[in-house]
């Protein structure tokens, strides 16, 4: 009976061998594929299994982690002053995923990034718990607070930049939401999420970066920059050859002025009272292609402005007709800009023509505070010469001293600004957007450039609305930054 016994022995060996081969196939060959499977909850479990790193503003954390009694996800994200900071942090929800900084810096915050490999290895030996690293932002708590409080219960957004470096100082959007309200996976989290996503006011929209508005009269500074840079205007105090009424080229439609005294007004005067006709004609004189070129140097039509949160592309149409270009030159027609974009335009002017790349993450640090990555200021482009930038500053400062931007004036500080009211809706049926862009300037250059947009204002007139609604908010933000510096 031994011969069949030996065969059975071989058969049993084959059975065990088959199991071993199968196991190698499963755990070695297919492991990555199985781990990446969409039904695999382990990645999410791991993400919330330990304390997440924090997002830091002014040395203080604006996020936190709290231990829950949940069986799947041990820690839950919390937010200090969530609604105010939501446009910066985004959210990290156990069920609904993450966005903005929480998502973009997830590797560092969750501690899974390869850049933290050394820390993880050390923690393995020292027996420390795994922790995430921190993202230190460039934002200023006071500026953010001024912006958020300034917007109050109005719908709108504020973007503030340090013109010299491109550091983003404030990024506010209202109405906002509290990312803590749906960070967990209880029933109330789901309800909060549903309520927020169904809200017609879109509280989860980051208006400062992700929404484009017609920039209205604030765009005139860009038209003026193009006029100076391409030689259409030599002297800002010389009368322009502008008829009243100015008929849009190729049409019989007159360009309506809300201000008086625009006929043959100087560029400086036209800026001061915001003459539509002067700038429409100037844009036409420069020509569409040169206008597009100038707008693009300032960052329009760029789909890759990453702060690192990607901003929506602002639009200056490359293919429109002559009259479209003339209307676009005063920020109407299909010109559209994000608040960040208009802050960039202002910052470039305030920084004597150098546009710095806007960014909001200063550095990434490991759990034990070693710097893993330091972001340094980076020049994005030089849209205009220093001389022309100074001419523009002169005109913008004049707007605040003598013109429509009086509400932004700060004692003892040079402030340059431009108001704007952008019509929108069919035949201007909806309430216009009130804009204000401005910068403050001290002896050491300009520490802050701000763009403010307020939707749904009840005001009608250009001069009143931008200056009346948006300028005080810009002023508060500038004062917060100036106070910070002193």
């Amino acid at each position, binding site marked *: *009976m*031994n*011969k*069949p*016994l*030996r*065969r*059975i*022995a071989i*058969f*049993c*060996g084959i*059975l*065990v061998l*088959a*199991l*071993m081969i*199968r*196991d*190698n196939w*499963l*755990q*070695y060959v*297919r*492991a*990555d*594929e*199985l*781990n990446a*499977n969409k*039904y*695999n*909850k*382990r990645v999410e*479990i791991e993400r919330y299994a330990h304390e997440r790193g924090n997002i830091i503003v002014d040395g203080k954390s604006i996020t936190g982690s709290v231990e829950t009694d949940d*069986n*799947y996800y041990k820690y839950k994200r919390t937010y200090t002053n969530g609604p105010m900071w939501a446009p910066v942090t985004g959210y990290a929800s156990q069920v609904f995923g993450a966005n903005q900084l929480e998502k973009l810096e997830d590797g560092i915050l969750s501690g899974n990034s390869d850049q933290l490999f050394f820390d993880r290895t050390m923690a393995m030996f020292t027996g420390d718990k795994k922790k995430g690293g921190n993202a230190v932002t460039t934002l200023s708590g006071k500026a953010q607070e001024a912006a958020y409080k300034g917007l109050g219960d109005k719908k709108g957004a504020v973007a503030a930049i340090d013109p010299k470096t491109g550091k983003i100082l404030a990024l506010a959007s209202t109405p906002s939401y509290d990312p803590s309200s749906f960070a967990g996976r209880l029933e109330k989290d789901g309800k909060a999420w549903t309520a927020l996503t169904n809200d017609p006011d879109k509280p989860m929209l980051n208006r400062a970066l992700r929404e484009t508005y017609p920039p209205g009269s604030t765009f005139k500074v860009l038209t003026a920059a193009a006029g100076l840079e391409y030689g259409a205007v030599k002297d800002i105090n010389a009368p322009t050859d502008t008829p009243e009424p100015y008929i849009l080229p190729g049409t019989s439609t007159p360009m309506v002025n809300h201000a008086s005294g625009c006929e043959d007004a100087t560029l400086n005067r036209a800026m001061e009272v915001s003459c539509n006709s002067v700038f429409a004609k100037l844009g036409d004189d420069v020509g569409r292609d040169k206008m597009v070129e100038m707008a693009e140097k300032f960052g329009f039509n760029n789909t890759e402005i990453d702060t690192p949160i990607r901003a929506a592309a602002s639009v200056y149409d490359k293919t429109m007709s002559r009259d479209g270009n003339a209307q676009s030159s005063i920020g109407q027609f299909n010109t559209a800009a994000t608040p960040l974009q208009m802050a960039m335009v202002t910052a470039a002017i305030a920084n004597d023509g150098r546009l710095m790349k806007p960014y909001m993450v200063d550095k990434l640090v490991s759990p034990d505070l070693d710097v893993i990555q330091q972001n340094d200021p980076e020049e994005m482009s030089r849209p205009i010469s220093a001389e022309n930038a100074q001419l523009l500053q002169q005109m913008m400062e004049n707007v605040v001293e003598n013109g429509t931007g009086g509400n932004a004036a700060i004692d003892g500080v040079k402030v340059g600004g431009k108001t704007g009211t952008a019509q929108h809706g069919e035949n201007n049926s909806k309430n216009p957007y009130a804009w204000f862009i401005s910068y403050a300037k001290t002896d050491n250059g300009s520490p802050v450039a701000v763009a403010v947009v307020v939707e749904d204002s009840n005001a009608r007139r250009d001069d009143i609305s931008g200056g009346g609604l948006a300028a005080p908010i810009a002023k508060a933000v500038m004062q917060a930054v100036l106070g910070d510096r002193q």
Partner: protein
Amino acid sequence: MSVVTNTTTIGAIDAPSRRNTELMLLGFAVAIPVFAYINVGLALDGELPAGVLGYGLGLGLLAGVAHLVVRRFARYADPLMLPLATLLNGLGLVLIWRLDQSPRLLARSDFAPQATNQLMYSALGIALFVGVLLVMKDHRVLQRFTYISMAVSIVLLLLPLVPGLGADVFGAKIWIRVGGFSIQPGEFAKIVIAVFFSGYLMVKRDALALASRRFMGLYLPRGRDLGPILTIWAMSLLILVFENDLGTSLLFFGMFVIMLYVATERTSWIVMGLLMSAGGAVVVSSFASHVQSRVAAWLDPFGCLETAPEGSNMLNACDQMTQVLMSFGAGGTLGTGWGQGNSDLIAFAANSDFIFATVGEELGLAGVMAFLLLYGLIIERGVRTALAARDPFGKLFAIGLSGAFALQVFVVAGGVMGLIPLTGMTMPFLAAGGSSVIANWALIGILIRISDTARRPAPSPAPSPDAEMTQVVRP
């Protein structure tokens, strides 16, 4: 055969007892689970588990008692089997205890901690092991119970179908409930039916082997010899159909074919066995939805997760299968470490039928390979015992038990790893379940007894009177 080669079971007649080797190996078999236990405690709570001393002493005591009994009553037994079984049982206890700590499982209504029960059952199992060695001085006495065994095994198998006694747990009617305890009679029937097969085949082997007609290259046995085979085939089908127990029917039929082949040395039995099991599989899977969903979950688990109707049996089967596969994937090469995996996501039956997935996730490829080698070694020692046994009954009995053990390991591990469709059976010694651990300890006890008989030195030849004479005679 040379007297010096005494390292194997089929070695020299006067093999040394190797009891000290066994004792040393038992030391490892107790120490490794204790370290594993400490490891789980440190990983889960960051401190030594409270019961570590008790657990270590308990396991050591059980192993010590078993060793002393083997040393006294089965001196020449194979030295590997007891340490292997102890190691597997000890690690199984740690795995079960680890899953007991899972808050996700504790939150389920159908989950209760099992480690204490399992420790008690392990003690009972070792008691039965000791009992086998004490009571059964020679395995050949079992030959007397050939036909009684047949009756007992049939009764055992049919018990779960008795109304009031059988318990339908999650679709499979393989348990009986006696006074608060649930017993899986199939696990014990496995051993009892091996007794019957061995006794029956030992007597009938010549008739089965020789009285046959050659037909198309196959030796077809006579109708009356074919009878028992068809009976077993039909019985395994019946188990499958009425008790929804794919695993047990496969196990019995496979064991029978193996023993038939060894007894008759005719390959045609294997061919016929394969044909009959294939036929049975086709027939059953054509109408048992239970089997169909298992097959669907085996063929394309992730795909069927999407296509299976909401709340269906098939969805459960597929969900379970995908969770098991992802557990193995998460383990990777080295595993996540004791206590640090998420194999409790499998949820239902994570500590019984699917306990091998926890090995896969927390110990990784390396751990699974080690476990498979441990099982492989037990099987190998069993087959060697069969080779070494001097009587046909012992040979058949040993190969039957080892073959059944090998098939069970293959069917369970293969099912869990997605190599073959899943069947509801327990991983010997690892899975939570009293019947299984008790029956497998008895199985090891029997194999140790057979190996003791096989390796026992032959009694020295009776003194030859003639030789005496030539020396003694003096003028």
